[in-house]
């Protein structure tokens, strides 16, 4: 099996409530997969089952070739989990903590992957070099989040889990975080599964987006593919003789060609806006929540 993640018909039930109703998806090596959905859609439950932190009710799950519910410490060493720090390890110095946590990974080095990540290089990668000797409790929110990422990747994971990593971030911390993730995927073949309800974030980071609503995946594809497949219409704006026009066109290119043929040089201020991921997402979620079952798969790997 080549897939790093393979989830089939995953179901989760708490008491009488079904949180996941048959979730299926896969991820191949090096892919950044974003699980997008409104609050309560089951994103966190899904990721916690894959992390091995939560028992599923039914379904088949394979993560790095093993069932996370039964996988051992050697499997654990190949995964990374980015947790949100709160007050933990407040008295530890940044470098001291990363060096300590890295030690556990040393026996799991392979010829191709040296574990753990060299601590000074790691601190540099997440941009904490000036704060290496600082105690964790004296870090700012954004610095703390970088430390969270550093802890998640100290063992050079083949698969990294991030559950709403930028919740509560200010815009600057968010951009810094996105930079770190890009650096991570550029430099090595880390597969990443990330949950968010932030569309902008999904669009920036994802190779592929899964939209989860009401415990079911309702769409699967790249941001572009989802936007295009969902809403074929583009918005065309232009002005002629000082008057403004707006038109929604199925085939914007053909429409504009026709526009120029008819009016030639009198067409001014032309703007063509393709449907955004946000439009697609809103439409999909609305459909799903109003009980219109529509499974949209933009791309089949």
């Amino acid at each position, binding site marked *: 099996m080549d897939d790093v993640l393979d989830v089939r018909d995953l179901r989760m039930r708490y008491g009488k409530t079904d949180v996941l109703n048959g979730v299926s998806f896969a991820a191949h090596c090096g892919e950044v997969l974003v699980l997008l959905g409104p609050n309560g859609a089951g994103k966190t439950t899904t990721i916690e089952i894959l*992390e091995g932190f939560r028992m599923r009710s039914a379904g088949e799950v394979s993560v790095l070739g093993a069932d996370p519910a039964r996988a051992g410490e050697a499997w*654990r*060493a190949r995964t990374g989990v980015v947790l949100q720090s709160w007050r*933990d390890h407040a008295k*530890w110095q940044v470098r001291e903590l990363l060096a300590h*946590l890295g*030690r556990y990974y040393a*026996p799991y080095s392979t010829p191709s992957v040296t574990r753990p990540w060299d601590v000074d290089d790691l601190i540099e990668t997440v941009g904490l070099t000036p704060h290496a000797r600082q105690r964790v409790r004296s870090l700012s929110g954004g610095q703390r989040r970088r430390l969270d990422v550093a802890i998640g990747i100290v063992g050079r994971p083949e698969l990294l889990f991030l559950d709403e990593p930028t919740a509560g971030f200010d815009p600057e911390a968010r951009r810094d975080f996105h930079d770190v993730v890009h650096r991570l995927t550029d430099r090595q073949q880390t597969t990443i599964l990330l949950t968010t309800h932030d569309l902008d974030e999904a669009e920036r980071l994802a190779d592929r987006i899964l939209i989860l609503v009401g415990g079911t995946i309702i769409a699967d594809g790249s941001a572009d593919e989802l936007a295009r497949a969902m809403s074929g219409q583009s918005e065309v704006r232009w002005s002629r003789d000082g008057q403004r026009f707006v038109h929604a066109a199925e085939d914007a290119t053909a429409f504009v060609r026709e526009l120029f043929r008819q009016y030639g040089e009198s067409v001014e201020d032309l703007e063509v806006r393709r449907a955004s991921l946000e439009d697609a997402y809103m439409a999909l979620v609305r459909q799903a929540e109003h009980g219109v079952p529509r499974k949209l798969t933009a791309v089949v790997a």
Partner: protein
Amino acid sequence: MNPTLVAARAGLSRGWIEFRQTLTTPGDLIAILLMTGGFLAAIIWTRYTHVPGTHFSLGTTMLVSVLGLNVVVYGVITMGDLLVTEREDGTLLRAKAIPNGMLGYLLGKVINISGQVAFAVAITLVTGAFLVAGLAIGSPGSWLTLAWVLGLGLLATLPLGAVLGSLFSSQRSAGGPMLLLLGGLAAISGIFYPITHLPVFLQWTGQVFPLYWLGLGMRSALLPNAVAAVEIGHSWRHLATFGVLSAWAIAGLVLAPVVLRRMARRESGSDVAARREKAMRR
């Protein structure tokens, strides 16, 4: 490299780092010093009072008994409290997310708390030795007894603390009941006054728990043999001390892994997030 061995070594260094942090964090250090100071004040207060029926200083017996109380305070209360706190703040979840992390975490706690016990016992004994008279600390036998009572005491209390820490869900719900329990226990365990002056059923109750035996063991190590006259059976009862503390240690070491594993299995990011939100709202 054996992963378990690596994690065990990491745990030892973790314990040492945490212990050092405890001694260099003003709040933590002050808490230890305040408690020690409180005990010493009680000892000074009673040093000219006699143990009833003898001419021996009550303050001296209290000083020695308090060494036993220290083991229970740190081994059970601090251990339990740290476990509750660190489950709440996500330290434990981090340990769970790394290979063999729980082993390193727990071993670290054991080392850290053993260090705190040794520290508290040392400063109590050293300061106390200048304040009271009559300590029998001249012979190697005294120190040998002190060592095994201390070691066995830690084995009897640390797993118990871990079990209690796993059972409570938040620090707020744990702190009060645990301290209340300890206060009541200290009162019936002959720490501040000879147990033989209590009603018989309370004597029996006190003898069920490790605190009484830790106090007795410490007294047997550091007091003149004649003082055993005020103990139950007019004896230091070494064999019984060894037996009861061992029983607690075995029970704890059997129970703790089961309870800890069950607790650790339930930890997840959303639990920690929920607790954080609850804490922020308070």
